[in-house]
């Protein structure tokens, strides 16, 4: 793929955030995923050129972190938490249910390119277990059925909104741009906090 002048300008502005350019590798890799959907060889070459590094140095970083994908994922990337707490409370059943329902294995992508599946580690939402992430948005308190409904919605083009997130689920590429630090104007959408986050405060107001 080729990069437009606008892409290059965005990448230069990402580099300018940092006192030393090499620090920009990670946001540049997120940005590369927002363009191509994954980290392509071309984007590694470009990042190396922009930062005056060897391609091997950029590749070394891109392969260390699991969020950087070296092959295409779905338009909606689904992560099921199977770390201990979520696994025990239903994450294992959800992950098994989704594999069967979608006919794919871990790291697989559906043939229509809509959904990819990955089992993930703890996602800092344990009071909402079992947790499923889609393009790294929170889907709280999931069941096998709700997770199947979620991926069915993705394949039909109308996924349900995240539990604590924007009003509509953005695509993998759009989410990658947010992770590169680009403001998509959706920060004010969605809940400020879910019920469990507010439980202590509520009890305190009741005098406890």
């Amino acid at each position, binding site marked *: 793929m080729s990069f437009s002048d606008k892409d290059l300008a965005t990448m230069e502005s990402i580099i300018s955030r940092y006192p*030393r350019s090499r*620090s920009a590798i*990670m946001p540049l890799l997120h940005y590369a995923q927002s363009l191509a959907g994954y980290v392509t060889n071309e984007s590694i070459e470009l990042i190396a050129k922009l930062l005056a590094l060897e391609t091997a140095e950029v590749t070394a970083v891109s392969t260390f972190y699991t*969020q950087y994908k070296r092959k295409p994922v779905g338009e909606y990337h689904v992560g099921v938490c199977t770390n201990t707490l979520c696994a025990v409370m239903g994450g294992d059943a959800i992950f098994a249910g989704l594999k069967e329902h979608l006919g794919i294995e871990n790291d697989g992508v559906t043939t229509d390119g809509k959904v990819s599946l990955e089992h993930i580690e703890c996602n800092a939402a*344990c009071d909402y277990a*079992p947790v499923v992430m889609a393009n790294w948005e929170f889907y709280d308190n999931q069941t096998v059925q709700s997770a199947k409904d979620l991926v069915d919605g993705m394949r039909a083009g109308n996924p349900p909104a995240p539990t*604590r*997130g924007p009003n509509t689920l953005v695509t993998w590429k759009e989410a990658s741009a947010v992770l590169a630090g680009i403001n998509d104007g959706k920060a004010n959408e969605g809940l400020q906090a879910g019920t469990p986050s507010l439980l202590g405060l509520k*009890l305190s107001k009741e005098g406890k």
Partner: protein
Amino acid sequence: MTKLAPVLSAHWDEKDSFTIDAYTRNGGYKASKKALAMDPDAVIQLVKDSGLRGRGGAGFPTGMKWGFIPQGDNKDHYLVVNADESEPGTCKDMPLLLANPHVLVEGCIIACHAIRAKYAFIYIRGEVTHVVRRLNQAIEDAYKAGHLGNGIELVLHVGAGAYICGEETALLDSLEGFRGQPRLRPPFPAIAGLYARPTVVNNVESISSVPAIINNGAEWYQSMGTEKSKGTTLYSLSGHVKNPGQFEAPLGITLREILELSGGIRAGHTLKFWTPGGSSTPLFTSDHLDVPLDYEGVSAAGSMLGTKALQIFDETTCVVRAVLRWTEFYKHESCGKCTPCREGTWWLVQILRDLEAGKGTEADLAKLLDLCDNIMGRSFCALGDGATSPITSSIKYFRDEYIAHLTNGACPFDPAASTLFEGANK
């Protein structure tokens, strides 16, 4: 007497709590104004006097850490906030940032002033798109309002899914654009941190606690908590409980008290084991319900306060399955830099898989403990140490359950009984 004391979480129930308007309405950005008018050393002294200790797990006194930064050295200084919340069970910083990102921004301004830093970085885990949006917007709005940009720059840096980057020196390597692997210490970050310059690395909750301390004073903060563990903190209750959630209370509250407040274990079940501060802190059982959850109390009972991630498991849960899964996590997240952790966690998983399937022998338990002994204290960073905690503590308290897998030739538990949707608490 009121047991809970919301300070950080005081305004989370306001629908617009994350906006700069709400934060300012509730008294936000007064503390930074006050602090910027103070001598930086006086700010450090105030934080020292408050007794605030690191909320990321280690409990190191925050003011003392700031005081380690050499002054008058004509070098750039940096503040780095660790928002890479990834310790299994830990879920306090993400709801905090979702509901009130400005308190962290204001804390960064105060801390930068105190340590004479012009640049601050927030290193946030990458798997939380909406939290990134909220924090990014908060930083933009703080620039527009003139709170940032007048001598203090704040950059949000988004990680990409590596637990090891919660380790402060691995985080610094990652922020410099390398693979996130820990550094040998000394030199400590206070002397040679980011870009080999004096750097303070603090947890989100530690820095977010600073504005209230500036506003209300050290004595106010000292008045809460226990003798050596001052102030309030977020306790995160999860697992087989009736009502999971965040509970902000003075340090020293017990699990029994939190369970009584919140409704207890899920109906018809009993507490079996729990973590006081994430999976890297040795397991507790129902014998530890009255342990004061402060740094000293938990330590005296044989574990660590850690991140105050109270993961609760009832009697339907197989402890071997739970420990195997945590061990698989440590193996996956081991960065590969040092041999004891890289090779050791691999062997721990092999042995635990056999044990869980009822295929091992009792000698495997001794082998597990021997492996743990060779990882604990011999690894490059705390990840290796943490990997041994669930294993050694579970064998200490539940040895019979490991043996039952062997005599049974399989796991004696029904995993469906532990799930929320198929268990008794549907």
